[in-house]
């Protein structure tokens, strides 16, 4: 009976979240649509200075910019649902194709930094939580302050100077060693690819790593004070079982929330990191689009980032269900 009930509750819960997600996406798409009308006149960017008035009117009609705003919005939404974000004003190629080409680079970068941030963050967080007063913990905590307080681009430039310019161990920019693998261009299968992803991934992960580290530490300290840890000690359980079997899992619910939000943050921050390292991902594309007021790309990027956030949050909510049996009960 229990698994059945669980399934039912989970279904209801996911349905609820999906409805909320749809609402968020509708709002975001409305905002990105409004970009077309508020960020300058696209025709100016598309034609040269010497274009005649007639040419301009013709382009406006081709793009449908003279239609009533609701008609334009409807057309935009229908196209978006079909995955068609229109042509880039600058490159004159379909935006969806441009994004798909650059997506693997960004996703691989985000994945690599998420792994670094989560893994090292949790390990160090647990360590500093348990060995609160050791000098290693004190050093880790002081260094982590730097990670939280320095902006990403400074860390990036500093790492480039140290490892690429001074020590010459790693390349300073670009994405090397790309292999085509069934339509997905990956750089994770070659040594050159690994060498080129290390610096941007570390840079991108540093802020999230320190956030996770400090959160896990604070939660560990809290949990270690709880009665069930004291009772576990009084039963003579080994330290390893107490720290990892009992304490760590109880810290996970808030930690999962923050990790979920932060992976979204990684994508958002990747704009800066990709610019610093000239990493050919969607973030770099977005920055270039902003320079040229390439509205279709900006609008599509906005919708794409929002979709990622929504999906990640949905996954986080489902993870709660798996981690904490008390949430499964529903209600209070």
């Amino acid at each position, binding site marked *: 009976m229990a698994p059945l009930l669980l399934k039912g509750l989970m279904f209801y819960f996911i349905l609820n979240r999906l409805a909320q997600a749809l609402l968020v996406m509708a709002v975001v798409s409305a905002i990105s649509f409004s970009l077309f009308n508020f960020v300058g006149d696209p025709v100016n960017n598309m034609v040269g200075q010497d274009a005649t008035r007639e040419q301009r009117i013709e382009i406006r009609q081709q793009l449908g910019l003279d239609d009533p705003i609701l008609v334009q919005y409807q057309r935009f939404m229908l196209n978006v649902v079909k995955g068609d974000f229109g042509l880039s004003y600058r490159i004159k190629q379909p935006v969806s194709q441009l994004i798909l080409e650059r997506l693997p680079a960004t996703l691989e970068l985000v994945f690599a930094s998420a792994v670094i941030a989560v893994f090292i963050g949790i390990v160090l967080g647990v360590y500093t939580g348990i060995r609160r007063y050791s000098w290693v913990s004190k050093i880790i905590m002081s260094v982590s302050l730097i990670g939280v307080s320095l902006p990403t681009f400074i860390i990036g430039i500093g790492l480039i100077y140290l490892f690429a310019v001074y020590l010459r161990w790693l390349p300073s920019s670009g994405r090397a060693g790309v292999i085509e693998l069934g339509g997905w261009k990956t750089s994770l299968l070659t040594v050159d690819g690994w060498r080129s992803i290390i610096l941007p991934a570390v840079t991108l992960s540093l802020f999230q790593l320190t956030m996770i580290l400090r959160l896990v530490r604070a939660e560990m300290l809290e949990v270690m004070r709880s*009665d069930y840890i*004291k*009772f576990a000690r009084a039963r*003579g*359980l080994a330290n390893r079982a107490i720290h990892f079997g009992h304490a760590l899992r*109880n810290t996970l619910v808030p930690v999962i929330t923050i990790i979920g939000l932060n992976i979204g943050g990684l994508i958002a921050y990747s704009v800066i990191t990709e610019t610093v390292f000239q990493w050919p991902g969607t973030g770099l594309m977005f920055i270039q689009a902003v320079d040229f007021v390439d509205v279709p790309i900006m609008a599509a990027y906005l919708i794409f980032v929002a979709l990622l956030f929504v999906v990640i949050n949905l996954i986080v909510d489902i993870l709660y269900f798996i981690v904490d*049996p008390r949430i499964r009960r*529903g209600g209070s």
Partner: protein
Amino acid sequence: MTNLLEINNLSVDFPSRRGQVSAVNKVSLAVAKGEVLGLVGESGAGKSTVGNSVINLLEPPGIISGGEIIFDGTRIDQLSNEEMRKLRGTKIGTIFQDPQTSLNPLMTIGKQLSETLIETLKISGASAREKSIELLDSVGIPDPEPRLNAYPHQFSGGMRQRVVIALALAGDPDLIIADEPTTALDVSIQKQILDLMKSLCKQRNLGVIIVTHDIGVIAEIADRVAVMYNGQLVEQGEVTQVLQKPKHDYTKSLISAVPSGDQKLHRFTVVDYIDGSTEKVTLENVSDHWLSRNKPSNTHDIAVSVKNLSIEFSIRKALFRKNRISLKAVDDVSIEIKTGESFGLVGESGSGKSTLARLIAGLYTPKSGDINIFGHNVLQKTEKIKTSLIRRKMQMIFQDPYSSLNSRMTVEDIVSEPIRFHRSTRNQSETAVVVRDLISFVGMPSTSLRKYPHEFSGGQRQRISIARALASRPEILICDEPTSALDVSVQANILNLLKDLQEELSLTMLFISHDLPVIRQMCDRVAVMQNGRICEIAETDTLFDHPNHEYSKHLLGLMPRMDLFRL
């Protein structure tokens, strides 16, 4: 008979910036196999610290500064952490106070049991499972096998404490230290747990140390008792001797301060042994004071009248109505409280007594039914101004004095806030005078006005709560378990204060408690609640001497056996 555990001249210190605090001072105890030793004392007496030193799990920065602990012939207070860990669980088991928090909420009961069994008995997973079922069965959990997959929140409080006991017994220890094992439980469940512990002690020939502040628990279970006061052992002996013929003055006054359910006394006996516990409350001229002024001459005989009141809480939300589950916390309740009387509300936890009080106080909105206060229907939508004026005449005192005061406000601000809000004084200087008077009425010095709540003990905080409630010049006082978080000695003082204030100010009082002796001393009439319904309403003496309803009889039967320790 050789002693299982011997504690000789144990001293425990807590070093702090202001110097050493001596929590335990030269305490010597002994427990034999098959014997239950009760360790009794009020909060801060150091009784839990003694228990924690035996298993070497003192809260930091506590250290054992003297004496020795000998378990089964070997000295254990100097063992290394690893050696001590091997002793815990296999030789010495521990049970803590709150079963809600003693179990890991994210792990199934079966997992926690088998993990402990594998660690302590070094057995395989399969036999650990069998042994788990056996253990759960022995602590009286019915149909144990499917329950292995249940999580702690799926058990009730009493069942959870049984699981905790099973876990403590998992390594087959010789000694059990139980730290307030029944304090968080209802009386009926308390009795079951104590009976279980007693029978396990005899069956397995265990030595048991039971640490408690509740003399009723000691009378129920202990063979011998040791009384602690202020870190020192003041008396030790056979339970009947200590309870009936206590030698030490502290023990004497502690025992006499336990409220009696047998007869009604005018005042509660206070523990006069403790310095400063008999703060003299002067309630002279209260009738001329600001507190009694501005009082409309109330012609209503009935202060509060509740008719067919019901409220439901949803336990499970769902899309479809048929899948929703809701709990009727208060179910068709009707009571009338006369002006100037003390009306008691008694029942076990979950019976809906606090919910009823909160409904009357206007903190919840009922699903159906009527509430009339001084003849005015406070649930109607019209005449809202009149309703709020009437509501002001009612004030509430909450159970937990730690969370019911704002920790970032001074006592003066806390007490004066209702006066300033209602603009019930002419000017600021009058407010200051009134606040000082109020604080002295509740027996606190005027120096406390500039302090913050954390600087006070639980009893003092409850006095501040009372002063705050009085600042609205209430005519009806709702007290929701006002003393159940406090020690017996403090309880006596607070209850006497409430009695005096009620007499002087002719307050109407709704007094909620699960403690029957307290109800008997405080109330004129009593309503017994069970599962959201009223079972019986009667005059207090009638209810205690000749209860009508089966449930009232059952509750009365669970009162601690007072006869054992009347002087």
